[in-house]
């Protein structure tokens, strides 16, 4: 089983802010929800971004470094790619709502919440 404790915590944090925001109709909590969701997206994307291989004069060294990175970087599964795609879809939405300094409406809340839920699943394979 693979599961990312940090991402799980961020998703739970974000959703807890949303719950509190909904109950208290609190603008500050809605903003915290958006910020925590944005952090979730950022962390997920940074973990999936391939490492840039620096340039080397020696092709032997470059080949060796690239082989080591290939071995030590787990291959992204279809599930991982799907998650990244979903996260990529909600990130502009979160940024836009933050820029507009407003509460997310119900459909935006659901859209973000669904991605947080689905993307924090463990991979049992």
């Amino acid at each position, binding site marked *: 089983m693979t*599961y990312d404790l940090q991402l*799980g915590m961020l998703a739970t944090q974000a959703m807890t802010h949303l719950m509190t925001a909904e109950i208290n109709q609190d603008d500050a909590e809605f903003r915290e929800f958006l910020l925590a969701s944005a952090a979730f997206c950022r962390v997920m994307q940074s973990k999936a971004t391939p490492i840039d291989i620096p340039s080397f004069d020696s092709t032997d060294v470059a080949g060796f470094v690239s082989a080591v990175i290939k071995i030590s970087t787990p291959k992204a599964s279809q599930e991982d790619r799907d998650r990244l795609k979903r996260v990529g879809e909600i990130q502009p939405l979160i940024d836009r709502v933050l820029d507009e300094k407003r509460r997310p409406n119900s459909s935006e809340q659901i859209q973000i*919440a669904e991605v947080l*839920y*689905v993307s924090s699943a463990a991979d049992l394979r």
Partner: protein
Amino acid sequence: MTAGLPISMSAAQLKFLLGTSAENLIRLESILRRRQELGSVPEFDAIISAMLGHCDSYRGYYLQYAPTIRKVLSDIPISQIEELGLKTLFRNCINTFLVLHELLLFLPREPIRKEMHFFCAELFWPVYDISDLSVILTSVYNAFEYSLDAAIKSLDVFIMKVPDPNKLGFGHVMELAIIDRDNPLSWPILAHEFGHYLDNKYTISDPLTEHFIDTELHVPSDSREVFRKIFKPLAAELFADLTSYYLLGPVGILPIVNMELNFGMATDEPIPYDGIHPFTSTRLQVITDIAAADHMTLESFGTYIQALKEDEDNKVAKLPPAEQKKRASNRQLATFLAQRLRAAFIDEIEKFNLKRFKSDNFKTSEDLKSSLGQGIPVGCKRQLSDDVVRTRLSEVTNTSSVTELREVFAVFREVPVRVSEVLTAGWISNTGRQARALADAFALGDLDKVFPHLKKSLEDQDKLLMKSIEMISVVMEMVSAPQ
């Protein structure tokens, strides 16, 4: 419905997950605090503190959902956002629990409890011998059975250092998840592992499966090997499940259902076929069928069964048709195998002279349940019914001699019950306890008291069952002592 998006849950499933998420956190935290208090050695402090930090965070998140949780407990509908929030909480709570449980590997391993030794000795009598079969705790949230010989063979590092393991006679090991050490309701899983032990030691399911392939499937000789590979692991699991059923009745399968429900929340897909275990719902069906034939029912455990069925049905419905078909074939295959081999497996288990759990035992458990509900340990029961006791007592007169009186008062004689009866009573009683404890805890009005209340309810149940098991051993001694 869009693929990959979450599905709505029933109130029953939400309640089940509310209970189990809190219970996992409480049990994990108790283990960590005990290690901190009893085994206080500084090198483990950092690990324990980090793990407790995670438990604290999730406890805090859980309590922030109190308004939504109260709605669920009162059967008030919740909004889509509230449901998504709760499910995100459950999922991450359970996933974090699974990871932290695995990290318990870094802490010293505790020995198993004396009550569990007695449980094994009593349940597996006359086959169990502690010098033959070690029971230890594992940081993997699962249970296992294996021979040390096989383990050593698979460890490359030992190949050059030990003599041929086949000649060593190393014996066997059963492992139980660390979290289950203090939870007698999870111990029935050891009966499944004991089934594997019998099967491996006495080679039972393999030849019967070979016979099944030859006589029932009539496969061409060049494809027999493929069928062996498919059916043998399935048959071994069914044999282990039936051993557990033979010893404990319907509750033998419940810890597996509970475990599956925990894993189920971790992901949106149904647990895939691992090439060894039939789907848990199929195993549950096999046990339900055989229990019905033996005049026993799993109705008392409806919460678990409903939650499992709902979880699987929802997830399978989202799979592509080809995948659904594959799962259906797998289920059909395992069910067919179970139907054909069930009787032969039970006959083989019968040969060990183990104590079989029958409908009478189930009836006793249902009677014991009310005492457990009142907080009374249930290690023994009166030998005679209340009616007989009343009749005999009414025969006492003013002129009865001391000898006559002694004979009459012997009607109060108590006999030990079986550990299987205690655990069945415990499971029946637990089915409603979790929801009741949650409702009571959230009715207290003070969120700081919620987890202490749930913890007390859980610990009271564990202690009551431990005491009941211990009481069996005491009453057995008393009954066998010369009068």
